[in-house]
């Protein structure tokens, strides 16, 4: 995109042993400093695999990155040696996971965990690292941070644990933050607190963020840019405004129609029929074609992600869908 891109992902393709078709197929995006990209999709769409691949945390085997490049400030994350990746991960690139209880070490005090990461990446002494840990707990607004520093993860509530995770992730002033469903396990009032916190910390530090979520509400709240994934591919991407006010792909439309409205009640929900095919049973061509009400013969070839203008890109043979074409399509489709 621009010269200021912090992260450029190109053609990321991930294969699963025993499955012919790639389970993440040709995924790419660019991210500038200070920007938030939300990757949204349902279970099995490949959103988490994409983020794990970026962090070099894919379980290999059975998974392998067969193609792709992830240029992070000039270096390819997918090709660099493990030792170099370890230097970047936790330092210039940090992660927040869904379940802080499984990502925090249960046997280490909160303060020690944060300080350890600071010592490792900043090369500072014990006392300085501890001071930094305290400062971070204060910044994520954990009450009584001096006391929490010496507590273990199990002594904290879910929301406080997620704050501690964020404190740890941000302790080394990362340029890129990858957050995989960071608020999914939390109650709605706690979720609102954490999202607000992530937003304000991001504004302070200017970090770029890749936020993986299944919740369109979180997307609307947080995203500058959106990538909608289905069956391992990005099927629609653009600015949040483009994707929400002018969605183009039938899956995006179906997903948005499936969301119950908070306004006055309006009869039955419009759904997406059927279920996502198993990875071994993905149709050739457009992977949404088995569930799409507009599918025709044209959908048997893989639709390219095509720019409809101003960077709003859609992978659908029928985009832009208009009223004049659609009735004809419907009759051929059934």
């Amino acid at each position, binding site marked *: 995109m621009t010269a200021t891109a912090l992260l450029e992902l190109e053609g990321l393709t991930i294969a699963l042993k025993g499955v012919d078709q790639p389970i993440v197929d040709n995924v790419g995006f660019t991210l500038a400093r200070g920007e938030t990209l939300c990757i949204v999709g*349902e*279970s099995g769409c490949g959103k988490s695999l994409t983020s794990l691949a970026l962090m070099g945390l894919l379980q290999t085997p059975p998974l392998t990155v067969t193609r792709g490049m992830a240029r992070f400030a000039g270096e390819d994350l997918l090709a660099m040696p493990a030792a170099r990746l370890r230097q970047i991960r936790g330092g210039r690139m940090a992660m927040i996971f869904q379940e802080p209880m499984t990502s925090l070490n249960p046997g280490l005090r909160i303060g020690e965990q944060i300080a350890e990461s600071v010592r490792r990446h900043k090369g500072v002494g014990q006392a300085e690292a501890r001071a930094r840990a305290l400062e971070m707990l204060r910044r994520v607004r954990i*009450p009584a941070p001096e006391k929490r520093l010496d507590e273990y993860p199990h002594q904290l*509530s*879910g*929301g*406080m644990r997620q704050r501690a995770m964020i404190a740890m992730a941000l302790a080394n002033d990362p340029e890129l933050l990858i957050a995989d469903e960071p608020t999914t396990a939390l*109650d*709605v*009032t*706690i*979720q*609102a*607190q954490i*999202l*607000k916190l992530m937003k304000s910390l991001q504004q302070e530090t200017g970090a770029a963020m890749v936020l993986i979520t299944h*919740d*369109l*509400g*979180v*997307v*609307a*709240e947080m995203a500058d840019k959106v990538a909608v994934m289905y069956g391992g591919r990005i099927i629609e991407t653009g600015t*949040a*405004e483009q*994707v*929400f*006010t*002018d*969605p*183009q792909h039938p899956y995006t*439309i*179906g*997903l*948005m*129609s*499936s*969301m*119950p*409205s*908070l*306004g*006055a*009640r309006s009869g*039955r*929900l*419009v*759904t*997406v*029929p059927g*279920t996502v095919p198993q990875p071994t049973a993905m149709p050739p061509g457009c992977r949404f074609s088995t569930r799409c*009400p*507009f599918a025709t013969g044209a959908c048997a070839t893989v639709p390219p992600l095509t720019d409809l203008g101003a960077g709003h890109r859609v992978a659908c043979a029928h985009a832009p*869908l*208009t*009223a004049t074409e*659609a009735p004809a399509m*419907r009759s051929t*489709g*059934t």
Partner: protein
Amino acid sequence: MTAILSTRGLRKDFVTAKPLFGEATVVQAVAGVSLDIAAGETFAIVGESGCGKSTLARLLLRLIDPTAGEVWYKGEDLASLPPARLRALRRDLQFIFQDPFSSLNPQMSVGALIEEPMRVHSIGTRTERRAKVADLLTRVGLRPEHADRYPHEFSGGQRQRIGIARALASGPTVLIGDEPVSALDVSIQAQVVNLLEDLKDDFGLTLVIIAHDLAVIRHMADRVAVMYLGEVVECAPAGDLYAHPLHPYAEALLAAIPVASYGARPARTMVEGDPPNPIAPPPGCKFHPRCPYATDICRVERPVLADMGGGRTVACHRATELSLQGLADLEQARTPAARGRFALYAQAMADKTAHNRPE
């Protein structure tokens, strides 16, 4: 309103094991709940983790025994019924669990799972039961031949359909769902929500839905009870509650929803911090430490549910003087072309489902 299911002063205490030193701690998971659920309505119970909503759901069917209080169904108090009579009544009262992966016995075929409630209640002959299983499978959007398969062969959404078919097998009048769609993906969730609403109409059911997703509740429920630390703090018709909440906690819940409309409004954090420890709830109103409107009386005196008219009750000292904010119109603004596409999609889906039901 004719209540089909009522509770009076329902309470459930959980007592921890006595530690080496000191006393065992007591958690009042449900701390005196009185509700009337009308025949044929969809009644929702919402609240955050630990508010006691799941415990309350289990008490409604007496899946667990209450510490005190009554549960009235058709003139009988479930809380004090002898086991045999209770078992017979369970024919009428059925439960749908949240997790379709752990609530179905993996060693039983789908047919056997759905038939089991009928066998337990001695309903029909074996042939009649088999026919009923096939019928139920079709009703929930599966196929009769699925009866011979096992739960692991199905996706989460399909398993939830199996759970629903099983719940319907004994011909219940009341169906209680504890987060019945929370574990499902959005598109599958919408299918199951539609299914539950269709079944409710077809079988004349009363639905009690426990959930934390306020959008699902808004869509499904006629009336909503909001729980906080074991107590109902507000109970109201869904539309009224969402437009004009009367309890500050209800307002905070609504404010915190991330709305799936770009540019609609940012979620607001009306409350900071976590809910207090239920082992030692604060004195006075349990919500007062987090309440932005709390005054002196809230810190000392516990408010009781008061009738506010219009079928609404609220437990807040300041309910009449506060003017709280609900959800305004939050529909996504869309380009005319996009609105056209949504209409096309809805039409295409309607045509498709008309041609080959079930979806």
